């Protein structure tokens, strides 16, 4: 009896953004005719992006009346491997694996598939070693590409630029590839490369960017392809108003907090590449449902396209939060991705 109206209280006890569900027009196939339990095994749940992602997952699971176990490794890859084992051992009917290292997760994913548990992967490059898992991802290359194209449009070629990133984190590494290519083709000169990925990334990144700025006050733009880095960078700019006033910042990701920062008076964050983590969380869950019901073959691939969000766009449409943004940019919702007539799709 999945309803059709907004029902924030029953959807989840812990939602920030509550969704609307579409109407179902068919009865659910097996195994959804009985009680179903699925698990999400995520590398990290900390931070807004992941919380919203999980929120989407929860609401989509609840919309179909499916029980959801959440395994969160708090950023520890070894723990994630253990938790994947635990999820398999706990006898769930389907598993979403979100982020992590392919080599870490591969054995567990294959073990699950061998035991007959369907697995959907999000953002782990695991095709070669676990070909039977369903692959989903947001396109980091597209995300970086969209923003860097905008940056090129804004500042032109042959400029001095700064870069805030760290190596060793898969999606950031993928964005890094695009950045390096852009440096070459656009003739940009990277004046500094700094960043700190810790438990409080934004706070710890700020002083480093601040110092880097002092020795390189002549950069015209900074690319910080992760919103915690972007926040840290903004905070560093704020501390150096004398040298930093003209610098444009290009970031990644979007959240209510990010919108606030981008639209703030005098904000230097001019563009970001965005997906709606809520929508992606829900879409990945729908993908799992389809796969479990046999409507999506093993080894299938599903991509979630990002959009470009600029400061001008936000200001022109007077966008204050994610709801406003979704209203102005329905493409964020991707509610048609992995939809079916028996799945009440959650849109936000």
């Amino acid at each position: 009896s999945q309803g059709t109206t907004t029902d924030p209280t029953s959807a989840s006890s812990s939602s920030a953004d509550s969704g609307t569900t579409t109407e179902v027009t068919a009865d659910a196939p097996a195994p959804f005719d009985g009680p179903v339990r699925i698990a999400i095994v995520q590398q990290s749940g900390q931070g807004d992006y992941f919380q919203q992602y999980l929120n989407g997952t929860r609401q989509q699971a609840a919309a179909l009346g499916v029980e959801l176990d959440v395994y969160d490794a708090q950023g520890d890859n070894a723990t994630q491997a253990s938790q994947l084992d635990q999820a398999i051992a706990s006898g769930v009917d389907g598993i979403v694996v979100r982020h992590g290292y392919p080599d870490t997760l591969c054995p567990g994913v294959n073990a699950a598939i061998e035991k007959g548990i369907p697995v959907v992967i999000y953002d782990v490059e695991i095709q070669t070693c676990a070909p039977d898992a369903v692959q989903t991802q947001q396109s980091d290359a597209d995300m970086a590409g969209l923003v860097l194209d905008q940056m090129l449009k804004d500042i032109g070629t042959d400029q001095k630029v700064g870069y805030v990133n760290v190596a060793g984190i898969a999606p950031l590494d993928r964005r890094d590839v695009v950045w390096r290519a852009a440096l070459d083709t656009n003739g940009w000169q990277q004046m500094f490369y700094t960043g700190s990925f810790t438990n409080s990334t934004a706070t710890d990144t700020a002083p480093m960017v601040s110092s880097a700025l002092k020795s390189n006050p002549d950069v015209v733009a900074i690319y910080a392809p992760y919103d915690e880095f972007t926040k840290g960078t903004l905070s560093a700019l704020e501390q150096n108003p004398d040298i930093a006033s003209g610098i444009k910042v290009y970031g990644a990701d979007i959240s209510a907090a990010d919108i606030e920062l981008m639209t703030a008076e005098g904000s230097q964050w001019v563009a970001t590449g965005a997906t709606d983590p809520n929508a992606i969380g829900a879409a990945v869950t729908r993908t799992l449902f389809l796969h479990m019901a046999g409507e999506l073959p093993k080894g299938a691939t599903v991509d979630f396209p990002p959009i470009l969000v600029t400061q001008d766009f936000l200001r022109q449409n007077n966008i204050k939060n994610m709801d406003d943004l979704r209203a102005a940019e329905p493409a964020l919702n991707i509610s048609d991705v992995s939809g079916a007539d028996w799945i009440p799709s959650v849109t936000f």
Partner: protein
Amino acid sequence: MTGQLSETTTLTRIQDWVVKYGFIAVTVGLFVYFAITEPAFATSSSLFSMLKFASVTAILGLGVTFTMVVGGLDLSIGATAGLAVQLAAMTMVFYNLTGPTAVVAVLLGGLVVGLLNALLIVVFRIPDLLATLGMMFVIQGAKLIPVDGQSVSSGMVLRDGSVAPGSFTPDFLKIDRGFIGPVPLPVVIMLALVALSWFVLSRTTWGRLMYAVGANPEAARLAGVRVGFYHGLAYVISALLASVGGLILVSRIGQGDVNAGSSSLLEAVAVALVGTSVLGMGKPNAWGTLLGALLVGIVLTGLTMKGMQYYHQDTAKGLVVIVALLFSFTLSRKKLRYTPAT
């Protein structure tokens, strides 16, 4: 009169000098080196931003210092600072209250944490390290419950579907972004707190009694000292200082941040421990803690300006700590006695 008089030869005099001033000399030396090689380093804006950067570490380090004085060690300060971040953001964003109200809420939160620590340690007799370690985990998790693990920011959608009514007030944001004259407010706060801590610790009966409790609690008790009170007091002070650190952090970030604070713990401990060795004191003290924070700030700022990779930060931090300690402990001819107990 043959014997080996400890002749105060030139050598031992140099040694004593190094123990006493070596640490300061290294700090000054590094400062001068960076100032000469990186012209941007010694500009006043660069210096103030470095001081601003060091302020949170220094303030949390002061909290650690107080608990080290009573022979303990507060491992919950990082989490307490994080709690402060959360509380401030919630007060202003969720409940749309004023900046001063947020400050009061944060300090009350700190007080509660401090009292809980004191309860566990003094009344329930759980050793300091263990009690505060447990509290650290509890706070880290508990602070996320009311916000469902999300960072609080204005305009966010609440559980009941409504949009959060408030936002960070300009006066609150002044805590980090304000100035007194040319000096950033957090730097003023840091210096004031260091001076106050120094004053309390070395010029008042409270401070003396706290040192007594740390030096030998049984002897202090038999001298009529209310050991439990002073022991607990140190944890309350520590939690309050951590809350002040958290206030600066949250005003710097300008929104809630679920992760703020936690990375400060080990750094604050390092700074306070390094501080024990400044001026050959051999006991935890406020100025030493400040100097430790400054040294770390100088090294990180300087090396970042010199374009080092981000992962050299940790190496540099560690080496600085170790070199500072070599001066104080290895060269020292008197036995330094500070031992933080359980």
